[in-house]
């Protein structure tokens, strides 16, 4: 509950403050957001499975974001940034889909 409220507060802040993304962060922010989304879905699923642990969630959230950004950074340095960020998005997307399917099974029993 608190998490959902915090999420909403963050969205509202982002809309109200209208910050501009610094240039150096621009390639990484989308990937980081997707990675964080993956962590959030994983957390929701764990919660529904009854195995949610705050610490694991926090660690996975942060590490997901950092690793995703790192991969993209490496890719940019190696000259395959575009492909690598696509790969990251694909992998994370698959995981999100899997988690969403598990959540759906929990919620709708279907």
């Amino acid at each position, binding site marked *: 509950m608190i998490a959902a409220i915090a999420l909403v507060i963050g969205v509202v802040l982002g809309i109200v403050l209208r910050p501009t993304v610094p240039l150096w962060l621009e390639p990484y*922010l989308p990937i980081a957001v997707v990675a964080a989304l993956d962590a959030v879905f994983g957390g929701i699923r764990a919660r529904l499975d009854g195995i949610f642990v705050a610490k694991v969630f926090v660690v996975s959230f942060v590490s997901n974001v950092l690793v995703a950004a790192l991969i993209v950074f490496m890719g940019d340095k190696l000259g395959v940034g575009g492909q690598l960020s696509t790969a990251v998005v694909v992998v994370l997307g698959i995981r999100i889909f899997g988690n969403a399917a598990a959540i759906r099974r929990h919620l709708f029993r279907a």
Partner: protein
Amino acid sequence: MPKQPKPPGPPAGKSEPAEPAPPPVEPTEQPPTKQPVPAELTDEPAAEQPSAEQPAAEPAGGDRPPRRRNRGATVLIGALLAMLGFALAVQFRSNSTNDVLAGAREADLVRILDDQNSRIDRLQSQISDLQAARQRLSLNGSNNAAAREEAQRQADALAVLTGAAPAHGPGIRVLISDPQRALRAEELLDVVEELRGAGAEVIQFGPVRIGTSSAFTDSGAGVSLDGTALQSPYEVLAIGDPKTLDTALNIQGGVVNTVHAAGGEINIAEQSVVSITVTRTIPAPRYATPAGK
């Protein structure tokens, strides 16, 4: 929750990126440790730092430590999710409003540039096509305009010559008095013909504009021109070269002599501007139609 017994096995592995191993550990571990810890305690901690937390939570048996820890974790999670929401909103906004190019990669930029260049080429050729078309059309247009202008000029000239339009220009003003009414239609016609012969372009005789169909007729005591009775003195206006017209009237045996012989007076004045405002209405030809067009 209801399915608790079943899920721990398979789903646990995938739920968190961390580790598939712990879940199995937990169910087995929990029964022994007892029951008080309901949800929060779960599995992973067992793997990560089992000694630190579990013991703390258990002996307390109560809620103090877990709740405190819980609150800290909740705050942390809240902060993380707030950041996520913030980043989401920012990213949405920057993606929808800003140009996407700022964050694009070099390869993409090169491709976009290529696209733009080829688009420029296409548009350039389109521009030159359209310009050529425009030039063609405007050429046609100016031809049309020139033709129209020429036609208008001709119409104006014809209107002046046929008496349909007022005219002004250099010419002469002639006053012929005929107290004895000795001048007949023939003599008056001579005046007009003399002027015409001298190149008069527009002639007004008395109140009447001379046209191609003008005719002098003797009518009783006087002379009428196109049905209008003329009264002496006759005023004749003619547009043409004043010198030539003057000379033509003064020629030996010409108009001046005739008028004097008839006992009348003739007065010729060369004028730099003669203004003739009387016009004739031109009847539409009933039988003849223009040919050869």
